[in-house]
């Protein structure tokens, strides 16, 4: 039995954070479905807030700190990704975008992704479809059909048995199915690997 890894990225800023709460529930639903299918699951929670300074520093210097490099490797080397952001000004928040700006398009191409968001009103819910999903499409990830948005009324109604719960279970099942049928990740790509010989480089010269 293989161990399937799920990176669970949360861009919530407050503590405790409803964004983290949604991320954890999506992760649990996905894990339960994978376990039902006979897989072992390793969850890799990532709180972007803890790496906020390192993320900005990477944007400025062009390289990650050692701890941020480990986080990036954990995310890009996972079999599946759950990415949850609060909605600010009708889109993902800056921390979420800044983090994924550091992820190479090659690194998550073909990886199953489940997106989720939280917001102060349900009127933000389509930001998942016009902002978050297109970003992962650009990264050539395989985003599952159900994207989960949680508004304040979803929590106050009791997340366990309300409509939110049903969406979480459905989304988790979709991600688990994708992860189950996708080959395990080869791990993060090595940017220093030589992929061509000099004869090929020189040979390309005359063509």
């Amino acid at each position, binding site marked *: 039995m293989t161990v399937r890894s799920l990176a669970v990225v949360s861009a919530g800023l407050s503590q405790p954070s409803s964004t983290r709460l949604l991320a954890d529930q999506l992760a649990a639903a996905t894990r339960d479905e994978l376990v039902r299918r006979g897989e072992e699951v390793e969850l890799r929670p990532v709180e972007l807030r803890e790496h906020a300074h390192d993320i900005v520093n990477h944007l400025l*210097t062009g*390289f990650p*700190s050692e701890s941020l490099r480990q986080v990036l490797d954990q995310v890009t080397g996972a079999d599946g990704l759950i990415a949850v952001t609060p909605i600010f000004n009708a889109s993902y928040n800056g921390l979420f975008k800044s983090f994924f700006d550091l992820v190479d398009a090659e690194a998550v191409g073909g990886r199953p992704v489940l997106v989720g968001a939280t917001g102060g009103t349900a009127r933000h819910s389509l930001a998942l479809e016009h902002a978050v999903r297109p970003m992962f499409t650009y990264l050539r990830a395989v985003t599952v059909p159900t994207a989960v948005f949680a508004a304040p009324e979803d929590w106050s109604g009791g997340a366990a048995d309300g409509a939110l719960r049903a969406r979480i279970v459905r989304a988790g099942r979709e991600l688990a199915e994708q992860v189950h049928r996708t080959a395990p990740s080869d791990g993060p790509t090595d940017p220093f690997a*030589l992929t061509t010989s*000099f004869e090929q480089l020189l040979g390309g*010269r005359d063509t």
Partner: protein
Amino acid sequence: MQFGVFTVGDVTVDPTNGREPTEAERIKAMVAIALKAEEVGLDVFATGEHHNPPFVPSSPTTMLGYIAARTERLLLSTATTLITTNDPVKIAEDYAMLQHLADGRVDLMMGRGNTGPVYPWFGQDIRNGIPLAIENYDLLRRLWREDVVDWQGKFRTPLQSFTSTPRPLDDVPPFVWHGSIRSPEIAEQAAYYGDGFFANHIFWPAEHTRRMVGLYRQRFEHYGHGTADQAIVGLGGQVFMRRNSQDAVREFRPYFDNAPVYGHGPSLEEFTAQTPLTVGSPQQVIDRTLGFRDYVGDYQRQLFLLDHAGLPLKTVLEQLDLLGEEVVPVLRKEFDSLRPAHVPLAPTHASLRAAAQRAPQTGGTSTGDLAGAGAEIER
């Protein structure tokens, strides 16, 4: 082992007093730094090449020619020569000319340049950076090694029956280093030709340097130029020193915090932990620099960046005094005592000429036995 300084040639406001040097002051300061480097016993001065403000050194051979006339011993080099946007014909001519004027005290470091807008000013496209570096350098080598060149490529007008003049001094082309931060293709290029590889090493984690130098060494051996530990490696380094390390930190911090490259990002403490930047006493610089050998092996050239981020000339010259009097003599002795006999020194004009006289012509495809060439010269 060779020690020296390399300069970017930036015009930057001194953040401690708001003063910005004029271009004239900055250019003369670069010359003063080169002359001081020779005075304090360093071996190499290398200038950057840039074609956009806030940088002044757009014409490296003009500057290096002037310095050549005012020095006796100093090796003149570049960091880097833009192999992508310069015409290789002009590089061949300019540096052969400089080689004659400087009596062979010349080598070059090739680089691609990472500023997108510069490429179109010279009719090129940054997306072709690697193919330009490959094609242009291959032509440059031929221009220095073949008296008459017929050539056709993708990026430049074809050449028919072209002779680049003057021919290299003593028919020995300048030694070439290839500089790159994280492009494995450039480490491969350096290894293919048996040229030197220079890891920028400043502003970047040591891990980049370790991986790139490791790849270069492995491919150098693959292409039959010698064993991996005989490959010719250079490293950058960035230091700021005062006798008392707390004084160094206090004085350097405003320059660090406002520096164009990393300013307003990581703290000085974070950056010194993450990159080879060393701010402290001469002994700390000695210890840190000796530690470079732990992850790149025995290497041939160490260049320091001292003059940037608006540091005044007087401060830079004080840094050179400390480097020449306290740091480099110790490093020279330590590195020399650690280096095994079969690991060569960096090739020089004299060692390459001696090697060429020893070996029959190889048709211009290889620099020949670098191990033999470098070992010839003792400083």
